[in-house]
């Protein structure tokens, strides 16, 4: 039987100081052009927490605004501050940077994160009030250290600084003298990813009501590599995050496929549940510090605030078919293969129309397509255009070519079957998965019946292949059939066996005569 999607969570951590110190656009600029105008004006371009929290795409990401409601907000969205906005949404939250540093320390198992004494005293009481932080998590917060220790670690020991409003309030230290894979830089990136993954897991637990002990497996699908010099991508961020979140019965494993990893991971999860290997599989990922401020130079040049100031995370629960929640159709996935070819037509054929052809459906038979859901506020000023819209146009164009829709319907298709983008440019985070939570709600409410989720990945960035990657799956309204209703009842099986035995006995008796 198909597995079902029981819920999803979406979190952001607003990390403006990390934009300056950890985003690769900025760290690269400091190396190649240390006196640049951009670096000088950057601090003044960063948004305060309240602005980032009231930003319509961010409120959409955590579930307080639907994609349709977002499309009704006048663009560009950075010019609007929503009156009706909140840190917490029905699918997650936007955590402030200072509390996120505490969460990073909570996630640190090797005493590598140190925070200043006064900072801990100020922020810890607020962190303790968080509705999802239980005693086991609070107990992991350590006492603060002196400022002099922090200054020494940064100045003499290659530690990475943690800053709040430009002030040094802590550090992440290296875990090996020589191994670059355990440098302070890598440890910090991995702890940010782990902490944002953990926060997603905690919200998923709340959103789905699942008993933490019932989660069998966590599949983590971010884009970070954790390991040492002998196994650089050793991994299992999944199990590391599951431990902190308190999923005591869960194992874990990571799936890596650049931005396509979440959709690959969901297909893995759906197959593992449908096959009966596990009952409850969580797919989750934290975010990326490297991508903070990725398009910051273009934003600053055009007088915009730095919009890439949040780390993203998401989690979703795939479970045995309950006859209620939307089904993930594992038998009808799309995949861009080694031999698919790279033209836009070849890509859309592999990802969209191949699975539809298997089901005998037209492009217009899918109610909603969840593609690369990047926020156009971020991408358009940087010259990358409106990415979701470009994807919808390509799907529509192939639809016209196949005769699934008329050329005149092309624009209507993009609004009727597509959505505006709202996800932060955090690589894997916008890739197909931001709509999963809404899709579940829209299917349960009867607004839509089917949705195709498409993830794409830029494999060529790793320089191991020139290939691109992409995968897709379809979710649809539950047929109402559960394992109990579809299976042959035990009584019927007993009756069939009894009949067979009687026939055998009768036939043997006949032979004996």
């Amino acid at each position, binding site marked *: 039987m198909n597995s079902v999607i029981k819920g999803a969570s979406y979190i952001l951590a607003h990390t403006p100081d990390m934009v300056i110190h950890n985003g690769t656009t900025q760290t690269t600029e400091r190396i190649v052009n240390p006196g640049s105008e951009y670096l000088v004006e950057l601090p003044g371009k960063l948004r305060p927490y309240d602005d980032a929290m009231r930003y319509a795409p961010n409120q959409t990401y955590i579930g307080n605004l639907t994609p349709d409601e977002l499309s009704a907000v006048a663009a560009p969205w950075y010019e609007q501050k929503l009156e009706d906005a909140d840190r917490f949404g029905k699918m997650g939250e936007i955590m402030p940077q200072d509390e996120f540093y505490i969460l990073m320390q909570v996630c640190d198992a090797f005493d590598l994160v140190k925070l200043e004494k006064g900072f801990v005293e100020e922020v810890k009481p607020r962190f303790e009030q968080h509705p999802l932080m239980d005693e086991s998590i609070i107990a992991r917060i350590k006492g603060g250290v002196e400022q002099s220790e922090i200054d020494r670690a940064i100045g003499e020991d290659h530690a990475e600084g943690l800053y709040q409003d430009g002030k040094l309030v802590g550090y992440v230290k290296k875990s090996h003298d020589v191994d670059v894979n355990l440098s302070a830089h890598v440890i910090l990136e991995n702890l940010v990813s782990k902490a944002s993954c953990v926060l997603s897991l905690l919200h998923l637990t709340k959103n789905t009501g699942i008993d933490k002990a019932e989660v069998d497996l966590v599949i983590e699908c971010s884009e970070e590599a954790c390991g040492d010099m002998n196994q650089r991508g050793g991994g299992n961020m999944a199990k590391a995050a599951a431990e902190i979140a308190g999923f005591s019965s869960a194992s874990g494993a990571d799936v890596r496929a650049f931005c396509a990893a979440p959709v690959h991971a969901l297909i893995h999860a759906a197959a593992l549940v449908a096959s009966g290997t596990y009952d409850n599989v969580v797919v989750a990922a934290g975010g990326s510090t490297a991508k903070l401020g990725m398009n910051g130079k273009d934003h600053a040049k055009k007088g915009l605030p730095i919009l890439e100031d949040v780390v993203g995370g998401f989690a979703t629960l795939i479970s045995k078919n309950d006859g209620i929640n939307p089904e993930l159709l594992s038998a009808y996935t799309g995949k861009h293969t080694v031999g698919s070819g790279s033209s836009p037509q070849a890509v859309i054929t592999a990802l969209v129309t191949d699975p539809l052809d298997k089901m005998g459906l037209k492009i217009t038979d899918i109610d909603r397509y969840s593609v*690369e859901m990047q926020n156009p506020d971020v991408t358009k000023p940087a010259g990358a255009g409106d990415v979701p819209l470009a994807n919808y146009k390509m799907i529509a164009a192939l639809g016209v070519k196949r005769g699934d829709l008329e050329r005149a319907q092309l624009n209507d298709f993009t609004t009727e079957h597509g959505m505006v983008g709202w996800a932060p440019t955090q690589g894997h985070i916008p890739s197909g998965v931001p709509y999963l939570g809404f899709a579940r709600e829209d299917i349960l409410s009867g607004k839509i019946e089917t949705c195709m989720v498409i993830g794409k990945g830029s494999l060529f960035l790793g320089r191991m292949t020139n290939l691109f990657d992409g995968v897709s799956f379809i979710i649809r309204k539950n047929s109402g059939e559960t394992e109990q209703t579809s299976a042959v009842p035990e009584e019927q099986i007993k009756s069939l066996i009894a009949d067979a035995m009687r026939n055998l006995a009768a036939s043997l008796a006949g032979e004996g005569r």
Partner: protein
Amino acid sequence: MDLLKGKKVIVVGDRDGVPGPAIDECIKTAGADIVFSSTECFV
């Protein structure tokens, strides 16, 4: 069609637009000499 004939060309494709290898195939037929080709991801 002679616009690209014999010209040395650098190709920069877009993952969410037209990728490099697809552009390569087109401009090869126009007689261009591709000296560098890549696909970039802008998101």
